[in-house]
C-alpha cells in the first residue's frame, strides 16, 4: 500500500502545546517536511527563539539550541562559522527579531551570514499574552495599546523584508502567509528557496511568515486566518523582496 501521508522524521512524537489555530504548528511542520525532503536532518542545527516557539527543540527531531531573547542570529553566526558545512537556521517571532533582536538580525544580514531565518510575524507578543509588537498594525488593539495602536503615540510598525532588502549581504527575502492552503504551499516553496540559498552558499536568507495568533487577537481560528488575508497583507504586502542567484563568495 502506498502511504499518502506520514509525519516527517524531523518532527518528534511530542504533542505541540500551541493554541488551536496557531500559525507556529503549521510552520514547524513545513520546516520539518523540507528538512526531510532535502535530506538535511543529520546536518541541521536549529536555533529556537524566546517566544511561544521557545520549546521548538521538543518538536523538532534534530539538533536544536535555545538562544536568549533576540540573539538567535548571533548564536547562529557562531554555529555556522564553526561548522560551515552544516545547515543552520533560526526561528524567531516579531518581538524576538524586530524589537529586542533588531541589531542582531540587521548585522547578521549585513554580514551575509549563510544562515536561513524563519521570521514568524503574528503582530503581537504571543507568549507574554498579547502586548503590542513592532509589527502591530495601526488601530489594532493589544494589551498595551488597548485603544488600538496609535502611530502618534506608539509609532509605526516595522516592515522587516523592506528594511533588509537594502542590505548587500542579503540574498533571499520573501513574505508569505500561512492563512490558507495556497498560502501554506507558497510558504513551503519560499522556505525551500531560502534553504537552497544557504545550501548553495549564496548568503543570508529570510522568509517572513504572516501567521495567526487567535488567542491574543481575540478571534476564532477561522476569523484569524481571514484577518491575515484581509487586513495584515495591506500593511505587509506578500511577495519576493530580494532574490540573488549569484553567490556572494565564500
Amino acid at each position, binding site marked *: 500500500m502506498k502511504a499518502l501521508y506520514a509525519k516527517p522524521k524531523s518532527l518528534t512524537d511530542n504533542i505541540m502545546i500551541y493554541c488551536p489555530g496557531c500559525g507556529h504548528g503549521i510552520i514547524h511542520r513545513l520546516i520539518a517536511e523540507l528538512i526531510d525532503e532535502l535530506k538535511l536532518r543529520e546536518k541541521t542545527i536549529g536555533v529556537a527563539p524566546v517566544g511561544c516557539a521557545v*520549546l521548538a527543540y521538543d518538536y523538532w527531531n534534530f*539538533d536544536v539550541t*535555545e538562544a536568549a531573547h533576540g*540573539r538567535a542570529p548571533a*548564536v547562529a*553566526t557562531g554555529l555556522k562559522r*564553526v561548522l560551515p558545512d*552544516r545547515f543552520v537556521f533560526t526561528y524567531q517571532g516579531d518581538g524576538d527579531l524586530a524589537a529586542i533582536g533588531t*541589531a542582531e538580525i540587521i548585522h547578521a544580514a549585513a554580514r551575509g551570514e549563510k544562515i536561513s531565518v524563519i521570521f514568524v510575524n503574528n503582530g503581537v507578543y504571543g507568549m507574554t499574552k498579547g502586548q503590542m509588537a513592532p509589527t502591530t498594525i495601526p488601530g489594532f488593539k493589544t494589551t498595551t495599546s488597548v485603544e488600538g495602536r496609535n502611530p502618534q503615540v506608539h509609532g509605526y510598525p516595522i516592515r522587516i523584508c523592506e528594511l533588509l532588502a537594502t542590505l548587500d549581504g542579503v540574498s533571499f527575502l520573501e513574505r508569505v502567509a500561512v492563512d490558507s492552503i495556497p498560502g501554506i504551499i507558497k510558504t513551503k516553496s519560499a522556505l525551500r528557496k531560502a534553504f537552497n540559498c544557504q545550501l548553495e552558499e549564496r548568503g543570508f536568507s529570510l522568509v517572513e511568515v504572516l501567521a495567526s495568533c487567535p488567542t491574543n487577537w481575540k478571534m476564532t481560528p477561522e476569523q484569524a486566518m481571514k484577518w491575515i488575508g484581509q487586513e495584515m497583507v495591506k500593511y505587509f504586502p506578500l511577495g519576493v523582496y530580494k532574490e540573488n542567484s549569484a553567490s556572494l563568495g565564500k
Partner: protein
Amino acid sequence: MNSVLLSGCEAAAEAAIAAGCRFYAGYPITPQNRFPEYMSVRLPQVGGVFIQAESELAAINMVFGAAAAGARALTSSSSPGISLKQEGISYLAGCELPAVIINMNRGGPGLGDVTPSQSDYFQSTRGGGHGDYRTIVLAPWSVQELYDFTYLAFDLADRYRNPVLILSDGMVAQIMEPVRLKNGVKKLPVKKWALTGCRGRKPNSIKSLFLTPGVLETHNWKLARKYELMEKREGRWETYVCEKMELVIVSFGICARIVKEAMEQARKEDIRVGLFRPLTLWPFPYKQLRSYLDKVEKVLVVELNLGQMLDDVRIAAGDKRRIFFYGRPGGGVPTPEEILREIKKK
C-alpha cells in the same frame, strides 16, 4: 622554552590560540582594543574565525553559538562591555556551555575612565548576570600570568562545562613583558553534547529552560554540585611569608604586584609584613587565607576599588582580627611608596 615580548592583550590572544581556541568575537573598547585587532590578523592564520560583532551582546552570543558547536571560544572586553555580556554569561552557565571571557577592568561606574581598576570584583565573583550561578575567576598580575591563566581557563571551562572569567585590568592589558610560550595543545576534549548535526546519534539540544515543575530545581542542584567541586579543587593563591609577621596584606592582580614592591621595601626597613594573593577570586581561598591570618594580628586589604574583596577577607577572618583597608577607586594605580606609607600607619 622560547620567550617573546608581548603586551597583555597579545599574550592572552596567543595563549588562547595555543589552547586550541579558534573562535573570537568582540567589540572594540579601550583599554583592550589590541585584543580584537591582534585576533583579526592572528586567527585567520591558524584557520580560526574572527568576528567584529555589532555589540558585546552579539559577541557573547556568537561565542555561545561557537561553544554550542563544540569549539573553544573566547571574547574579551572591558567593564562597560562586560556589563552587556552578563546576559550571555548567565545563559552559558544555565546551558552548561564552556567559554572564556576576559575583562580588562577599567574605572566605573558608568563610562568611568580608561585606566586600570578592580571595581568589577563584585560583578565577577557574585554572578553579574541573573540567576544562581558561579564562574571561576582568575586574576593575573603580570603578562606571563595572563598568558598562563588564559591557557588554563580553556581547560577549566571544558572540564566543568562552565564559563570562566579572567579579571585583569587596563594595565596588564597594555604593558609589554617577556612571555614563555607553551606548546599548543595536541588533542582537544571530545564533546558528545555539542550540536554538530545528529548523524549517527540521537538529536542533542542545549537549553536553560525547564518548565516542568521540579525540573529546574533538579538542574540547579546539579549545577550546585559542580560549583562545590570547583570550590574544592580550583582555589589558587600565593603567599609571601616572613618570620614573626605583624601585618598581612591581602591584594590581587596588578595591585598585589605594587604591594609586593612596597612589602620588600618595608622588610628592608625591618617591618614584618607578609602578602597573601588570591589567584582565583572565585573560588576564593577562604580556608588558606584563614590559616595565614591566624599568624598575625593585623590585616590590610589593598584594592583598586572601594573595598570589594574586603568582604571576602572579612568572611575568611571571622571577626577576630583588625582589618584595615586602603583603596584607590578612581581608576589608576598607587605607587609602592603610597602603600608603604599605609603599611607604616598600621
